[in-house]
C-alpha cells in the first residue's frame, strides 16, 4: 500500500472515531426515551424492549395538566420575538455605523463592543434588582427585554453592510430616496441572508438561555422549556429520569430540525454564547 492510501485510511479512522464521540449522546438519548426507569437501570446500549416510548411521551404531555405545552409555547415566544426584534434593532444600528460619519462614532462603537464582553452573571443580578423595583419579576417581559439587545448583531451587521459599495448608496441618494428608504430598499435587501443567519443564531441562543429565566421567573407556567424540564419531579420531589430525558429530547428536536433544514444559514460565526 502506498503511503498516501495509508494516510487516507488513518484520517478516516480518526474522523470516524470522533464522529462516534459526537453522535453517542444523541444515540443514547434516542434509545433512552424508549425505556422506563427499570430499563434505564439495566445500562443496555440497545432500545428498550418492550418499548415505553409512547407511554413516556404521553406522560410528559400529561405532566402537571400539560404544563409541557406551556413551556414549549413560551420557548417559541421568547426565542422568536427576542431574536427578530433584537436583530432588527441591530440592523438599524449597524446601518448607522456603516452609512454615516457622525459625532462620537468610534468611541460609541468601542463602548458597545466593550460592554458586549461583560458576562451575563454580572448583569443578570442587577437586572433582577431592577426588574424587582419595576415589578417585572416573574413576567414574560423580564425574559424578553434583555433579549432585545443583540450587541453581536450590531457588530455583524456592520460587517454585512460593509459589503455594499458606497456607489449604490450614493446612486439611490441622487435619485432622491430618503434615508429610511435607502435602508429599506438598498441596504436591507442586500443583507437578507446575513439577517436570517443572525436571527437563527439568536433564536438558538434564546431557546438555550437558562440563567436569565432561572433568575427572573418563579411560576412554572411562564418558564421556557430549557428551565421547565429541570423542574420535572415526581410528587415526592424525586427525579423521574425517563420523563426528564423525554422532555430533553423534545427540547432539542426543534433545534435539530431547524439546523438540518436551514443548514446553509448556520455558517459558523464567532458567536459568543
Amino acid at each position, binding site marked *: 500500500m502506498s503511503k498516501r492510501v495509508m494516510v487516507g485510511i488513518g484520517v478516516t479512522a480518526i474522523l470516524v472515531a470522533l464522529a462516534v464521540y459526537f453522535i453517542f449522546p444523541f444515540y443514547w438519548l434516542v434509545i433512552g426515551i424508549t425505556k422506563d426507569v427499570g430499563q434505564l437501570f439495566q445500562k443496555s446500549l440497545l432500545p428498550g424492549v418492550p418499548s415505553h416510548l409512547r407511554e413516556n411521551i404521553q406522560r410528559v404531555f400529561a405532566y402537571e395538566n400539560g404544563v409541557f405545552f406551556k413551556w414549549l409555547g413560551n420557548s417559541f415566544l421568547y426565542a422568536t420575538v427576542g431574536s427578530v426584534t433584537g436583530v432588527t434593532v441591530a440592523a438599524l444600528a449597524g446601518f448607522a455605523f456603516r452609512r454615516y460619519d457622525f459625532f462620537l462614532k468610534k468611541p460609541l462603537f468601542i463602548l458597545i*463592543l466593550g460592554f458586549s*464582553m461583560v458576562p451575563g452573571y*454580572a448583569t443578570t443580578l442587577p437586572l433582577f434588582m431592577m426588574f424587582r423595583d419595576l415589578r417585572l419579576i416573574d413576567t414574560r417581559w423580564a425574559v424578553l427585554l434583555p433579549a432585545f439587545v443583540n450587541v453581536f448583531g450590531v457588530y455583524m451587521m456592520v460587517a454585512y453592510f460593509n459589503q455594499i459599495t458606497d456607489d449604490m448608496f450614493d446612486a439611490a441618494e441622487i435619485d432622491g430616496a430618503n434615508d429610511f428608504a435607502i435602508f429599506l430598499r438598498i441596504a436591507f435587501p442586500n443583507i437578507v441572508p446575513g439577517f436570517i443567519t443572525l436571527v437563527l443564531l439568536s433564536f438558538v441562543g434564546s431557546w438555550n438561555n437558562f440563567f436569565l429565566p432561572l433568575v427572573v421567573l418563579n411560576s412554572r407556567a411562564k418558564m421556557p422549556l430549557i428551565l421547565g424540564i*429541570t423542574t420535572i419531579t415526581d410528587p415526592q420531589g424525586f427525579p423521574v429520569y425517563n420523563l426528564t430525558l423525554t422532555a430533553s429530547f423534545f427540547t*432539542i428536536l426543534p433545534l435539530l430540525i431547524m*439546523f438540518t433544514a436551514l443548514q446553509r444559514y448556520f455558517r459558523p460565526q464567532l458567536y459568543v454564547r
Partner: protein
Amino acid sequence: MTSVTKKKLMTTLKAYLFLAPFLALFILMVIYPIGLGAKLSLYGQRGARMWYVGFDNYFRIFQDKKFWEAFKIPAFLLFVQVPLMLLLATIVSLMFETRKRSGSVFRFIYYLPYCIPGIVAGIVWSYIFSDSMSPLKPLLQFFGYQGEKLLTRPNVPLILLIIILWEFTGYTAFVIYSSLISIPREYSEAAQLDGAGFWQIAFKIKIPLLKDVLITLFIFNAIGAIQVFNEPWMLGGLVVLPNNYTPAMYIYSSAFSQGRFTYAAAMGMILACVTFVFSLWVLRTAAKQLLGSKS
C-alpha cells in the same frame, strides 16, 4: 456656521435616529444594570436594609477563600480544555481540508453538538456517567477501571472536560476550517514546488496565517471558562458539588440562596473586569477591522 459642520450635524442627527432603539435598550438593559451592580457592590446589606460601606465587600472578597477556590475549575478549563480543544480542532480542520467534498457528512455531525443547550448536554452526559444508568461502566471495567463509581467529585473535572470538548470542538474546527479554505491555494502550491511536505505546509504556512482566528477563539473560550455554570449545575443534580464550584455558581448561590446581593454584586464586578481584560485584544481588532479604514 459653516456648511461642513452643518452637514455633519445633519448626518449625526440621522445616525442617532437609526441608533435610537438600540441605544435606548442598550442603556436600559446593559449600562444601567452594570452601573447599578457597581453601586450595590459598595453597600453592605442585611435583609432589605442597605448602607454604604465603600470597598468593604471587595476587601472581604479578596480574603474569601471560597471565592478563590471557585477559580480552580476555570483554571483547569483554561489550561487543559481550551488548548486541547484548539489543538484537536486545528487537526480536525486540516483533515476536513483534505476532503472538501466527501467530508460534509463529518462536518455536519461535528457541528451538531453546538446546537445543544448546555443544560441538555449536562442532563444527558450526567446520566451517561451516573452510577445507576451508565452504559460506560461495564466498558471501562473491561479495560481495567477499578473505581467503584464513575460520577464522583474527583472525577467531575474530567467529566466536564468530556462534555465541553463534546459541545465545542466541532464548531471550533468549523470556524478554523472556514479560514483555512480562504487561504489562497498559491501559497501551499508554491511551498509544494519548493519540496515542502504536508506537515511543513501546515505548520510553517497555514497555522501562522490562522494566528488571529486562533487567538480570537482562545479568548472567547477563556471567557467561557470563567463563566461556566450550566454543565456543573446539572452535574450537581447527581453528585454533591460545593456551592462555590465555579465563580458563577458561587455568585448565584450567594445572591439567591443566602440573599447576600451586594456581596454577589461585588463578585460580579470582579468577574466582569477580569473578562474585560481578556477581551481587550478582540475588541481592538474588531474595531480596527470594521471602522478603521473609514474614520
